[in-house]
């Protein structure tokens, strides 16, 4: 095949896409989704509309009745929310269905009597012609994905100042998701020569593979949590009077498990596309947690407050975790310490009292009393104050004071919170000449906004699967295995299509 033929086929594909009315409609819809990112700016403390009207997040909260948690950056939260809704919901589901419907006729139309005679009499192999129709579909979705993702990225970057390079991977995963389904559409279109059949069967596959994927996750989750074993035990107990029934039930569960496994491994894993996107985003952004307590799922998502972490990102907490200023010229006394201790009591409770685990409020109160004693001794420049706030499922207690003299004082604060089996203390030291009250408050907030308490302590099946899924996970939770088997499915469909097409008499 020479360059001229290749160019002709590409031009044909492009024209086929550009002439498609559904494509034009989707381009308009895409622009409608991108436009708001240029019209609405999400900033640290306000939202700007049409670059002119500013609204505080408080106003938004009161209007919508949706509170923004104090421990998050509202701009980032809203932008990521918009990205998720648009990419995963609108584009990743409804958009893909639209695209499948819009491109399903590519192959059947080529195979229609009259059209096929002219095209297949040219010196181009049938396989090439079929694959070019497949490429047309990818081009169709590729252009739309680029406009959508690229447009949203540009909008958020220009107007909101939010750059999230990893988000650009969403375009790739949208094409990846479509590529799997379109390959099946090509197969059905080749066999039936009917666009309607191609659309319906592909939609069935989309739904079916999603159901199988979810069911498989639940099965694996249940097996992991020994729930299945429990079920078997119960069955054995219930059926102890009928040995045959016990065998029947066991056979049924094994068959069900085998069927789920078979379908799961054969079918394209469309449900993994979302998870893979998230992983790719993390890989690009390098936004894996800056610090992670792997035992309790307590993480600092990034380097907070312009501070750099010293040492391991997954510490064992034998020694305090320390952050120091990223700026080498900053005052060396500025530091953040994080310590963790077991909440289990180290001493036997007095007779008659029950065993009580450590809780943040009790430890903070004890610490507050120590500080008050020090203040009485004149060791503090300013006495302690104590505040409480809800933090995740528990309370966060902060005790603030100042040390030193009027000329050279230090802001000090200690935060107490407990989570799971652990009690955490974060100790902040900031030289007062380094920043004023307002700046300090912002710095402190920025430090804690990156802190997340793992809601995954008892994760549901989906969350559990997403935690298990990774680039280096065991093969059945491995991202490469997921991508590989999905692409193998697509290639199998295309191969079968070529096989069938080569046997057609026109």
């Amino acid at each position, binding site marked *: 095949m020479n360059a*001229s033929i290749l160019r*002709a086929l590409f031009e044909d594909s492009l*024209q086929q896409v550009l002439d498609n009315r559904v494509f034009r409609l989707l381009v308009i819809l895409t622009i409608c989704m991108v436009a708001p990112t240029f019209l609405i700016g999400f900033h640290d403390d306000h939202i700007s509309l049409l670059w002119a009207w500013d609204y505080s997040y408080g106003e938004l909260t009161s209007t919508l009745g949706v509170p923004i948690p104090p421990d998050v950056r509202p701009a980032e939260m809203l932008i990521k929310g918009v990205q998720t809704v648009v990419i995963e919901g609108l584009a990743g589901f409804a958009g893909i269905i639209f695209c499948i419907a819009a491109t399903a006729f590519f192959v059947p139309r080529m195979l229609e*009597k009259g*059209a096929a*005679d*002219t095209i297949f009499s*040219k010196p*181009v192999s049938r396989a090439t012609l079929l694959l070019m129709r497949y490429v047309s579909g990818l081009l169709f979705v590729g252009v739309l994905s680029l406009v959508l993702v690229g447009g949203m990225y540009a909008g958020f970057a220009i107007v909101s100042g939010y750059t999230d390079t990893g988000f650009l991977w969403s375009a790739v995963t949208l094409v990846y998701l479509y590529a799997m389904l379109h390959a099946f559409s090509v197969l059905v279109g080749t066999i039936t020569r009917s666009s309607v059949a191609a659309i319906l069967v592909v939609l069935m596959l989309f739904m079916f593979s999603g159901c199988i994927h979810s069911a498989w996750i639940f099965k694996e989750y249940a097996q992991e949590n020994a729930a299945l074993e429990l079920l078997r035990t119960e069955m054995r107990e219930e059926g102890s009077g009928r040995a045959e029934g016990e065998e029947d039930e066991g056979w049924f569960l094994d068959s069900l498990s085998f069927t789920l496994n078979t379908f799961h491994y054969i079918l394209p894993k469309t449900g993994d596309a979302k998870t893979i996107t998230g992983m790719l985003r993390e890989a690009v952004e390098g936004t894996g947690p800056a610090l992670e307590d792997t035992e309790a799922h307590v993480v600092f998502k990034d380097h907070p407050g312009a501070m750099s972490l010293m040492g391991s990102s997954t510490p064992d907490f034998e020694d305090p975790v320390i952050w120091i200023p990223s700026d080498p010229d900053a005052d060396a006394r500025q530091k953040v310490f994080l310590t963790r201790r077991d909440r289990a009591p180290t001493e036997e409770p007095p007779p008659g009292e029950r065993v009580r685990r450590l809780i943040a409020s009790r430890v903070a109160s004890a610490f507050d009393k120590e500080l008050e004693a020090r203040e009485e001794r004149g060791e503090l420049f300013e006495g302690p104050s104590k505040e409480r706030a809800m933090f995740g499922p528990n309370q966060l207690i902060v005790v603030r004071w100042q040390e030193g003299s009027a000329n050279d004082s230090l802001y000090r604060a200690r935060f107490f919170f407990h989570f799971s089996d652990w009690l955490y203390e974060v100790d902040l030291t900031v030289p007062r000449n380094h920043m004023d009250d307002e700046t300090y408050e912002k710095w402190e907030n920025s430090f804690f906004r990156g802190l997340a308490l793992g809601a995954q302590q008892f994760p549901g099946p989906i969350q559990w699967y997403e935690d298990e899924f990774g680039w280096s996970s065991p093969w059945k939770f491995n991202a490469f295995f997921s991508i590989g088997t999905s692409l193998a499915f697509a290639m199998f469909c295309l191969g079968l299509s070529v096989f069938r097409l080569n046997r057609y008499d*026109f």
Partner: protein
Amino acid sequence: MSQTTDPVVRVRDLHKVFGTSLFKRKGFPALRGVDLEVGRGQVFGLLGPNGAGKTTLVKVLLGLTKGWTGEATLLGKTPGDPRSRRRVGFLPEDHRMPPYLTGHQVMRLFGMMSGADSNRVNAQIGPLLEKVNMTSSAHRKIREYSKGMQQRLGLAQALVHEPDVVFLDEPTDGVDPVGRASIREMVLDMKARGVTVFINSHLLMEVELICDHVMIMDKGKILVQGSIDELTPRTGAVEVDLRETPEDLEEYLKGHGRGFSLRDKGFQLELNDDELDGLIDHLRARGLSILALTPRRLTLEQSFIGLIQEDQPGERP
């Protein structure tokens, strides 16, 4: 174009059966032992009733139909070989051009798909569209074209890469008389340039006008093939045009030939070659001026119908 004397098309004992599968052994035989050889520069007419196997034969040669047995070559290569396909133009019956393209884009697409260089294709598009009278519609989408316009564009696309062999399946279908005349002219022009043209048509008058050789098929086999002269033999009748026709002409010609009938400007008479000289002398002796003397031949249509009726006794061709 290469100047070898090898036939452009060579077919030997070609068989093709449709409708067979793993579970269905007996299908419908579309070709039953076809033998054919077509030389370079011929205009070859392929005739036959519906279902005779004409289109199947063309599709076998173009590699569009598979599973045939026998021997077949096109330009010395097996059917479907890209090297021969590059030198072939094809206008299928009831063809459908991509509706999302303009006429100009279709020409460019099919020209380049045939392997021709884009500059060469671009240079051909204008003159060809001019020849089929489509210049003014070149930049309209195909979906806006009438049947006749699509047919004319279809012919132009078959020629855009300057092929050595052209297969035209019902080329004048849906085309108006003026368009038909220009298509005939184009075919004759191709013949003059040494291009081999296959014409598959039901319009026998047209085939008779432009084809050198004709093959008539029925039920998958060849009934007859030969030159137009061979397929349209003389009937034995002669048409004579006279300057003046006397009233007693029939009486005067008694004893000369058989089956006398008057015509507009003369008469028709059945006689053999030996009787013809006598007739001329007899007319000249009366002082009658002979304007034309034409031996009557069977038309291609008459030959065709006769052959098909022989092959399908009791059936209408």
